[in-house]
Structures are given as structure tokens and as C-alpha cells.
């Protein structure tokens, strides 16, 4: 049973420098060969100041920028070995480019327990991470739903 008193709790903030090479590497893995993700020159030729973050680049902010994320989840009583990624949603508030320095704060915005079909209990957690850039501008809201069986 998930401890409802943890709802509203934020984890310590983290900082992440958006790397050109990381955007290149992620899109190489996805198989997106659009040159704007692989070369600063191509990005600039297309009118961008530098390599832009591709739609799912924010996943690198979380995993590389916040290596303590798993520890924070454990601290609120989540069995991290039993997590299933249920949903992911991004709200893009301003463009993000290589070289930007982002600060992220993750908050547990919802948590509830449900009976699954086989009668066992599962917890459904919603986490929201808000990212601000080096100019203090809010650039991204990332929401994820994690199912803990």
C-alpha cells in the first residue's frame, strides 16, 4: 500500500548540461538520421542556433542528470525492481538546444494503490519534473506514470 503522505514531496534538484554528442548518440540509437540532430552545421543551416533536443531527448536529462533518481524512489518506499513504465508525457514550453544548462526538480504529484486483475495490489505513481534553463526560463514539464507491481 503506497504511503499517501509522500504525495507532494519533491526530490533534491539536479543540473544537466545538454550535450550535442548525447543528442547525436540518442538519435543514432533510435535510427533518426535527420542531420539537425547529428551536426551543428546542419542544425544552423536549418535555422537553429545549435543542435536542438529531439522530442524524447529529455529521457537523457533524467537518467544522466539525476543518477540519484532510483535512490530517491527507494527512499519513499518504492520497490524499484518492480517498476513498469506506464506513461510518459512532455510539455515543451521553450526550445532546448545543445549547450543549455537545465535545472530539474522532480515532484511526486500523485500516488495510489489498485487491485490488479489477479487480486494482487499495485501502486501507480505520477512524477512530474520541471526544467528551467540557464536564463531562468521554464522550458519543459515531463510527467511519467510508473506502475509498481
Amino acid at each position, binding site marked *: 500500500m503506497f504511503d499517501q503522505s509522500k504525495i507532494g514531496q519533491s526530490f533534491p534538484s539536479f543540473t544537466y548540461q545538454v550535450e550535442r554528442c548525447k543528442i547525436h548518440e540518442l538519435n543514432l*540509437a533510435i535510427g533518426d538520421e535527420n542531420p539537425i540532430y547529428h551536426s551543428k552545421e546542419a542544425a544552423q543551416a536549418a535555422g537553429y542556433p545549435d543542435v536542438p533536443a529531439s522530442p524524447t531527448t529529455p529521457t537523457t536529462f533524467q537518467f544522466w542528470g539525476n543518477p540519484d533518481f532510483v535512490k530517491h524512489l527507494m527512499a519513499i518506499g518504492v520497490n524499484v525492481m518492480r517498476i513498469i513504465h506506464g*506513461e510518459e508525457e512532455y510539455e515543451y514550453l521553450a526550445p532546448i538546444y545543445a549547450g543549455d544548462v537545465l535545472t530539474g526538480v522532480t515532484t511526486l504529484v500523485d500516488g495510489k494503490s489498485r487491485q490488479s486483475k489477479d487480486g494482487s495490489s499495485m501502486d501507480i505513481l505520477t512524477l512530474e519534473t520541471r526544467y528551467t534553463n540557464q536564463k531562468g526560463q521554464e522550458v519543459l514539464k515531463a510527467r511519467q506514470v510508473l506502475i509498481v507491481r
Partner: protein
Amino acid sequence: MTTEAKLPTKRYFEDVQVGDEIPQLVKAPVTHLQLVRYAGASGDFNPLHTDPKIGEMLGIGGIIAHGMLIMGFLGQLLSDYVGPTALRKFGVRFKSMTRLDDVITCSGTITEKYEADGEACIAGKIQAVDQNGDVKASGTFVAALPKRGGE
């Protein structure tokens, strides 16, 4: 993978109509090497995605792809359609596991056109299915497009 690299096409609000289909994106079969690459790139090193022994142990029969890789395919679909900085919202729900050799096809439909906060927006639904038609992920997006003569 296609070898033909392309810049995103400039798409105007007036060019898009409710009911339009987004050009389909058919990805190459998912490979083990791709999942290893994706783990390193994303930083998600959960061995469920890279170590076949863990998959066997958990009784899910081998390794499964990162859900975020499938969302990445859908991101490519949208990036090809409107470019990366036009997106305002993009969300998916993960429906089933993707395995090695699965061939993922991404598609989408425009469901709405409206103006909000001084921006001309399109909204649509998207999904990723495998070679058997099983839905892996589905969701929605919103993008802001330029208007003709508006620049």
C-alpha cells in the same frame, strides 16, 4: 535505417486538415545492438533491456525494448512531420512489450486545429504497432505551426 537524410519540411497551419494522416514511418527490426546503444545513450541501464539472462529469470522470455525507444520512434514521426521545436505536447501510454526483431510502424492522424495563446495549433493521435498489428504505444500530440504570410 534510411540512408537518405532530410531536413524537416516547412509545414504551414493552412496545409494541415483534420483527418489528415501523418506519413507512416516503418522502422528497421529492433536489434540487440540497438538496445545496447539505446541503454548507453539514454542512461537507462536496466538489464531487462540488455541482458537475456535477466529476461529469462523474470519469465518474460528474453529481453524487451525500452518503452522510451518506441516513444523515440514516435518522436521521429512527429519530428519529420513538424520539426522538433514546433511540438508543444507529446504523450504516450505504453501498451505492450516490444521484442527483438519486431518491426514497428508509427502512424498518426490529425484530430483538431485551433488557435490558442496566439499560436496556430494542430493536435493529433499517434500509435506504434508491430508486424502483427499489436499496439506497443499510443498517445497524442500538439504542435504549433506558422501561418502563411504570418512571418
